[in-house]
């Protein structure tokens, strides 16, 4: 195994679990400077201060350090071999031990893993990452790994379901907002970042949602994304549900190819106040 790859991946995972990106910090600063609700403003100041402390100490942003998800972009002159995939997984294991990740791998057979009767593995590194998601890219020489750390709260409130669009974008937006408002309110850890994928199947919509989470930028918002953010913010949920105008900081959406049909599959994840926790590295 190449030590250099393992080291790069481990460091990237630690960065994903401990660091706000600059666009994320700026989104918080803007929200803090214009939020009128004193409680929500206080919460957002605490979240930003927490991020600065976590970045300095290379420690977890949140005690739910999340499940590692791996997004890989491959140009046509590069190859993702079985060996490289094993090195990446080893890097994830090391990164989880270094962060440290919350030891939350469930032990046992199928039934024991469902009802949690087999207990927890004490090794942070025992937490298996999700399957690789691989996309081709135009840059022929690129092989980029993005590590995303997905927490449990947004997984509870996420929804992947069909929308009968009635040949109207407005219908799709209305349904997304209808689903997002209660999801954000019940999440607890707002302000959220809404992440959306729209595709032809549950698998494709979720893959697109993951891509939106891996690539989204708080400084770049399409009209589609901006409208959803503004409409969900009308709910006045605010930070931690305490009221205020920043229930959502931004929306990251990825709209894929669509089926000749009256249905669109929409995957929606209300990312918590620390997400998307992500970092990238070129391998």
């Amino acid at each position, binding site marked *: 195994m190449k030590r250099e790859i393992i080291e790069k991946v481990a460091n990237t995972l630690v960065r994903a679990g401990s660091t706000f990106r600059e666009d994320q910090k700026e989104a918080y600063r803007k929200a803090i400077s214009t939020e009128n609700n004193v409680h929500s403003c206080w919460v957002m100041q605490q979240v930003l201060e*927490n991020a600065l402390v976590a970045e300095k100490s290379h420690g977890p942003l949140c005690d*739910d350090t999340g499940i590692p998800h791996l997004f890989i972009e491959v140009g046509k002159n590069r190859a993702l071999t079985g060996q490289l995939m094993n090195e990446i997984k080893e890097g994830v294991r090391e990164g989880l031990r270094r962060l440290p990740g919350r030891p939350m791998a469930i032990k046992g057979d199928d039934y024991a893993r469902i009802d949690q009767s087999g207990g927890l593995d004490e090794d942070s590194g025992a937490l298996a990452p999700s399957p690789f998601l691989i996309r081709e890219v135009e840059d022929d020489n690129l092989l980029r790994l993005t590590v995303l750390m997905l927490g449990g709260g947004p997984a509870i409130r996420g929804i992947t379901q069909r929308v009968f669009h009635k040949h109207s974008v407005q219908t799709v937006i209305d349904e997304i907002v209808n689903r997002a408002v209660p999801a954000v309110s019940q999440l607890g*850890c707002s302000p959220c970042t809404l992440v959306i994928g729209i595709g032809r199947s549950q698998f494709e919509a979720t893959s697109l949602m993951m891509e939106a989470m891996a690539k989204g930028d708080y400084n770049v918002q399409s009209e589609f994304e901006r409208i959803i953010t503004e409409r969900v913010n009308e709910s006045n949920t605010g930070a931690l549900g*305490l009221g205020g105008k920043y229930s959502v900081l931004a929306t990251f959406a990825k709209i894929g190819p669509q089926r000749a049909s009256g249905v669109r599959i929409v995957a929606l994840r209300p990312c918590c*106040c620390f997400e998307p926790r992500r970092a990238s590295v070129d391998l």
Partner: protein
Amino acid sequence: MKYLKTPISEEDIANLEVGDVVSISGYIYTGRDAVLPKIVKHAEDGTLADVNVDLQGQVIFHTAVSLAGVGPTSSNKLEIESSFGPLSRHGIKMHLGKGAIKPETVKELAENNAVFAVIPPVTALLGSQTSDIEVVCYPELGMEALHKIKVENYQAIIAAAQGKSIYDK
């Protein structure tokens, strides 16, 4: 800012109002989905002393305790929110977590002179304010066991007190 030290007195709790920002110091308990139903059963059976637990004037923080630190989980999960009433009747003065709770839970808190406080999920900040971590009972639950921790200046907002809730629209 109102400063509270555990064990918290009945008078201190009675003086709290929704929206107050409080600073909490002293020893507190931690527990969540897995252990709280067991503690409720001990409370109702009168066997808390058997597991070395004294709830009088205490705070229960809805968190796991692990190498990654501490941080609130959602207090409106079934097993957690259903513990508010029974634990308040047996001495808990403050339930510390996050998320909107039901009106009937707000009422139960008021009937027992107890409150619900919301703490931001700021694990990196809480790390430097947490020490003396020990497992009190049910060690087989690992990070979800009942722990006792010493906290210094945990800051939280009172979200439900005296029959009112910050989540009331």
